[in-house]
């Protein structure tokens, strides 16, 4: 069980992330979008979307800080209490911002007729997972780290997480972690596994080249015959209704 949850599952999830993204890039670049619903409703979206996205960016940054950077390194620049305070307060703030944004977004999605009509089952599953992971994340930060005094996940969760990437999985590290942590991690990896198959894929559309490209883009016509293109490999969507 431990092996399954803390070794097999993360690897399957990561493989799905990479494979799914490649597959999507090969065969479904047309579907690579969030299908924005701003056209239907924009008052709520104006507040909720930046709140959620910026909150989430900080959350991700926090994860990178906590998971990828070994404790020894941070202790070089500051004490453990400083780190703890930063992770607790900044983490809670970012989590709450993202959470509030998500609540607003889901509320908007449910209450605005056209937006709800444009919501697919895939979206609903994704929202459930995302919401769950976020809620548990806020939970571990506030309860385990705040109210219960502080659990040093950088002794267990972080080395385990790095172990996965160093091809040196150490499932026993996760055994000792509190239940909330373990749930959070499982949901997190479930989200990673589904990532390429949901609208979350749009996160990989970050326009990194935009600040560096010229404003005006010229391209040659492709194809050798007028207005035709070679059939793509694999299947092509016929209609998108």
């Amino acid at each position, binding site marked *: 069980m431990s092996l399954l949850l803390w070794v097999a599952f993360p690897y399957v999830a990561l493989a799905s992330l990479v494979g799914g993204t490649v597959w999507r890039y090969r065969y479904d670049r047309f579907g690579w979008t969030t299908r924005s619903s701003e056209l239907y409703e924009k008052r709520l979206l104006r507040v909720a979307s930046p709140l959620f996205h910026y909150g989430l960016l900080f959350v991700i940054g926090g994860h990178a800080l906590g998971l990828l950077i070994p404790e020894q390194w941070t202790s070089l620049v500051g004490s453990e209490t400083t780190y703890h305070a930063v992770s607790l307060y900044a983490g809670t703030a970012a989590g709450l911002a993202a959470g509030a944004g998500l609540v607003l977004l889901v509320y908007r999605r449910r209450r605005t007729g056209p937006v709800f009509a444009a919501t697919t089952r895939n979206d609903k599953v994704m929202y459930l997972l995302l919401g769950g992971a976020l809620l548990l994340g806020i939970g571990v930060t506030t309860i385990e780290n705040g109210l219960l005094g502080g659990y040093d996940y950088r002794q267990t969760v972080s080395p385990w997480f790095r172990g996965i990437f160093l091809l040196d999985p150490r499932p026993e590290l996760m055994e000792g972690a509190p239940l909330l942590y373990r749930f959070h991690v499982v949901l997190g990896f479930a989200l990673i596994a589904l990532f390429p198959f949901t609208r979350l894929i749009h996160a990989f559309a970050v326009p990194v080249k935009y600040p560096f490209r010229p404003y005006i883009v010229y391209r040659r016509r492709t194809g050798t015959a*007028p207005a035709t293109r070679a059939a793509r490999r694999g299947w092509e969507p016929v209609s998108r209704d």
Partner: protein
Amino acid sequence: MRVMAQLAMVMNLDKCIGCHTCSVTCKQTWTNRAGVEYVWFNNVETRPGQGYPRRYEDQEQWRGGWTLDRKGRLKPRSGGRARRMFTLFSNPLLPSIQDYYEPWTYDYATLTSAPLGDDFPVARPHSLISGEPMKVEWSANWDDDLGGGPDLARRDPVVERISDAVRLDFERAFMFYLPRICEHCLNPTCMAACPSGAIYKREEDGIVLVDQDACRGWRMCVTGCPYKKIYFNHRTGKAEKCTFCYPRVEVGLPTVCSETCVGRLRYIGVLLYDQDRVTEAASVEDDRDLYAAQLDVFLDPDDPAVRERARRDGVPDAWVEAARRSPVHALISKYQVALPLHPEYRTLPMVWYVPPLSPVVEALRDSGHDGEDAGNLFGAIETLRIPVEYLAELFTAGDTEPVTAVLRRLAAMRSYMRDVTLGDPADPGKAAAVGLTETEMGEMYRLLALAKYDERYVIPTQAAAEAAALEETACSVPGSGGLDGAAPVSGPFGEASGPPPTPTAENFHALKDRQTSGALTRPQDRRGRVNLLNWDGKGSPDGLFPGRDGDGR
């Protein structure tokens, strides 16, 4: 100088009868799908009127187009690169569906399925967005023919810019139709605003297109375009826009809107322009100089220097030839009777308009004067401030001078041709008064009034362009990389690495080698290979046989 060719359009507004045939045929061709129900790549607006989407010309609100920053450089009005990157997550400047209009259908089924009763069953409108019954309150041409009364038309942003006195008076003055498509600008803001770089301008014909596979649905282009001629498909989550019917023009057919235009008022042709001067022209300081600046960017295809340069820059001869016969070039640069729509947006639009003289003629007629008399017309153009100022706001950033000049030309032509048709002696003075010779006057008249199908649409095909290219390469060139990331046929180290040399270049080198060196060339050196068709049978040229020492030279 770098010569580029673009297909451009001119519309003669005097002839538009506002029948919307162009809009309907365009819609049936391109936007009759779910997700773009509200989209009209071609729409016809009554002016004065609010337009579609409502009040799109109010750039204080929508912030489309370009402005100059403090250093005088071009910057999208909605913000430059940094600002856009930080505000990616929300785009409050996007018009909502209500600003366009909520598309609807009727529940026709009730007409046949309603139970027997005293009342006639009625098909009620249902929203195509929410599916709910709705009250139809606006559409793409709700204020057609000044429908809805002066109150709607008074909210026309162009009217608001003209003085108060005018505002109270205008509804007595004039009305005309303005058909609009995407301008396929030389300096498009839609493209500049696209974070994904999915919008591009085709090098061959200047058509601005959205790569549907690269678009990520940021919607920034909709904000960027001051003409609001790029739309968001709310089903697919991608931007879509007028394609200038590229599958048609590539084979030499006019766009659907032109083909079906009842008034036969659209002209399509090639314009040559200098790509190096585009940015410079778009950033001239005074809005009112933009018209002249853009005229300056266009090149004269009759100028041998331009033709020479065009050949070097890879513009096919067929296209340069077409540019010489181009009706668009004639109307814009030669007779100078066409004007760009809202040059002050600084996108350098490529669909130009011959402004309507009819408001002036009608005003004259209504006041009991002869609407065809040159003197009367000239006088009226000077005194009828309202239509002229309005047209100037539309076409020349408020500068009445070019508009007056165009209207005078049209008026002179009208009165000159009346003499001719009525059998009176033609008056060369009338032509000279507006700076034209009598021949030019006749030609301009022919182009504006009589031009047949093949005079209105001078569209060189892509096949012609390709044939020229193929002549040079003697085989089809596999794409290097290509859009789909398809691997190039020959790898970076394969024999045919890089684009194959053209036969002419190959022959040149072979002949040169032959004349200048007595040694054999290596067979693996492709440049030294001999084209047997060029071999005169005398001697054995270099490269005909492999070298003996493996080196050859």
